[in-house]
């Protein structure tokens, strides 16, 4: 267990999430991609805390904030998707782009 290993895990998660967020059409799937990216951030923050500065709680607080942010993102995301769905019967990003015009 080294910092590098954990960071590699974080990087892998982040990249997978990025791929998902970019390649998926459905808004809900894009949200899932974002979630995976945030999971990578969580791992990285925790690893930095443990391996670099365990005597200071900042890393933990950061993780806590990130987890909360994730929940917020999810809740708002669902609300937006629901509204979108109701308004235009669409759940894909391409269709949402059309709404802008």
């Amino acid at each position, binding site marked *: *267990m080294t*910092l590098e*290993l*954990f*960071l590699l*895990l*974080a*990087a*892998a*998660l*982040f*990249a997978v*999430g*990025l*791929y*998902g967020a*970019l*390649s*998926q*059409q*459905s808004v*809900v*799937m894009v*949200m*899932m991609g974002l*979630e*995976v990216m945030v*999971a990578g951030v*969580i*791992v990285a923050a*925790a690893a930095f*805390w*443990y*391996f*670099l*500065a*365990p*005597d200071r*709680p*900042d890393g*933990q*607080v950061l*993780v*806590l*904030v990130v*987890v909360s942010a*994730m*929940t*917020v993102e*999810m*809740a*708002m995301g*669902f*609300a*937006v998707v*629901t509204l979108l769905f*109701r308004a235009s019967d669409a*759940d*894909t990003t*391409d269709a949402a782009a059309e709404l802008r015009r």
Partner: protein
Amino acid sequence: MVPTVLFWLFAVVAVGSAVAVFRVDSMARATYALALSFVAVGASLLLLNLAYLGVVTILMMVMEMAVMAVFMIMFMMNPAGLMPMSMLHNQRAALVLSGGVFAALAAGALLVEWPERRGTVPDDPTRAAGDAVMGSKMLVMMGIGAVLFTTVVAALVLAAARSRYDRGPAGERP
């Protein structure tokens, strides 16, 4: 030794199921693959002596995924993945970009000269975090609490125009 083996186990599960999220047809499976990925992430946090954060991550994420599954199936075509179809766009660009990002991040992780470790892990990291949150960073916590609450209410008001469960968006769809 044991922690290293466990770490690899969790890492493989986390990344593997994260990939599975975007590979499987069935929405239910995708959602629960993501949940599994988060459980593995939480478990790897446990390895870092972060019992509270690890368990809370598992708790929050499993709950989120359970609700997520409801929405997934509500809005997606073909929720059970019984019909083969592709819901992808600009896949190649996404692959290239995320591959590049991974390479850059990995290179950074391996090449950067990380500073020496300062201090030791406290006996009870949970207490340390609690002190931090409740002590000097009380404001942070209150802020988070307020934001969370507002979001939940806002989301529900937006989503549930006339919901049967008054507050809950669930229970609507098979």
